[in-house]
């Protein structure tokens, strides 16, 4: 069994056997468009970061694939294969309800000082009623309102581009989920996310 599941911008995702069980291999191959110095640095940094964060996120109370093995020489992470469907697919099928869980998951991570860094809808998988967070390559440790707010801003952007017709309701659901577990700074995070949006090029609101 060996199957390329996804060829993303940054890594390839393979389904392959590991020690007799099906597992996900996340391989960060070298990218020819970058100079080798930068390419090597990013692959190494992100592999280490992702492996650490997978474990830490799980400790914080969010479902993540179990980490099996890390190989820095070929920037590969081997982890549990989570069967299920991504939020992106669910939204495409008109199922918005898990947006609440997505908000909850982000708030749970944030409450433990973890910022996902790339909360696109394809990075959350619903499996057996549990929402798994994956792809921690761009994550960071931070308790800063600004960093947390960027997470909210990013997921908002994706939702508005992906389901413009149902965006308002879906995002409201997400915020409700977020508020249900957020720490005291939850309100500030949401407010800051709005500020970040207004900082966007030529956004109106601040100066009319």
């Amino acid at each position, binding site marked *: 069994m060996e199957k390329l599941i996804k*060829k*993303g*911008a*940054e890594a390839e995702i393979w389904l392959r056997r590991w020690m007799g069980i099906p597992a996900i291999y996340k391989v960060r191959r070298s*990218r*020819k*468009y*970058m*100079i080798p*110095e*930068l390419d090597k*640095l*990013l692959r190494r940094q992100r592999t280490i970061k992702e492996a650490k964060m997978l474990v830490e996120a799980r400790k914080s109370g969010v479902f993540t694939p179990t980490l099996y093995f890390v190989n820095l020489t070929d920037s590969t992470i081997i982890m549990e294969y989570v069967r299920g469907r991504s939020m992106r697919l669910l939204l495409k099928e008109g199922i918005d309800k898990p947006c609440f869980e997505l908000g909850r998951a982000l708030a749970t991570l944030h409450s433990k000082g973890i910022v996902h*860094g*790339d*909360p*696109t809808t*394809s990075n959350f998988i619903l499996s057996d009623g549990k929402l798994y967070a994956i792809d921690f390559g*761009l994550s960071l440790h931070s308790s800063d309102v600004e960093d947390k707010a*960027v997470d909210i*801003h*990013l997921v908002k*952007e*994706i939702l*508005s*581009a992906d389901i*413009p*017709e149902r965006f308002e309701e879906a995002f409201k659901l997400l915020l409700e989920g977020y508020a249900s577990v957020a720490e005291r700074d939850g309100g500030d995070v949401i407010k800051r996310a709005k500020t*970040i949006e207004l*900082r*966007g*090029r*030529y*956004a*109106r609101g601040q*100066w009319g």
Partner: protein
Amino acid sequence: MQARQITVLGIESTAHTFGAAIVTSEGRIVSDVKEVYRGANGSGIHPAEASQHHAKHAARVLKETLNKAGLSLGDVDAISYSAGPGLGPCLRVGAVVARSLSSYFSKPLVPVNHAVGHIELGCLLSGASDPVCLLVSGGHTALLSSRKGRWRFFGETLDITVGQLFDQFGRALNLPSPCGAEIEKLAHKGKKYVSLPFTVKGNDMSFSGLLTSAKRIIGRYDVEDLAYSLQETSFSMLCEVTERALAFTERKELLVVGGVAANRRLSEMLEEVCKRQEATLFVPPADFSGDCGSQIGWVGLRHFQHGFSVKPEDGFVKQRWRVDEVQIPWRS
């Protein structure tokens, strides 16, 4: 029945360029003339000075545009102008010229979003039909794709643009603005990579930390190596997000437009990104990737074909006007 050919005059004046062009409904650019304001070395655009520059050159640029096309104003079907986003004083020059002509010659007036101009002219000239678009200039750094009749943001800069990054770094080196071409030349001679912050947040990018870091180490490294490192770092960020956009949207065309699109290293890198995602790169000719009257004329023409124009007294100017606010009736 064959549709009659339509001819539109486009006037561009959002920032440093005052330009005019005559464009036809066959997608032909009959003439395109521009005059670019340049500040002193080490300084950027002074909005008031730039607007005076535009006012001074407007009549001549218009005359030349019409002469080259062999037309008079009575021959055009509509007049379009860049209504935003951009610098207020500059925008107003173009708007005043367009409104006056529209009123005097009784021609329909079409306000155009400058960024839509870049994208749509890019499509016309490069042959891209439904691309992911990397718009990278002094005013924008964004990835867009059309969906439900609008160009929608996939990701963009959270602070300054790549054009501003290059210009502000160039100004710190006392180069003449806009500095893009000069930075490219310097970078070409650089060899040693100096590590600089690489900031991609999901589908968004941040360049302000990169600018601060690069400016802080001026004098400690060769200028060529600094320019090289700045260019490689910022372009790698652009490429990564571009590849994400291609992978996510599953579109097979990539269009790159805006002033920075003229940089050859950037197209070389994007070419490689396209190979990885089995997509095709579309780059408009360098003369038309930056600001010009044609981008305004072409989009004005498309809007006019779809029945959109305003009365001269309603010819607005919007300094802040996001691309995704504009309905594009010819895109589904």
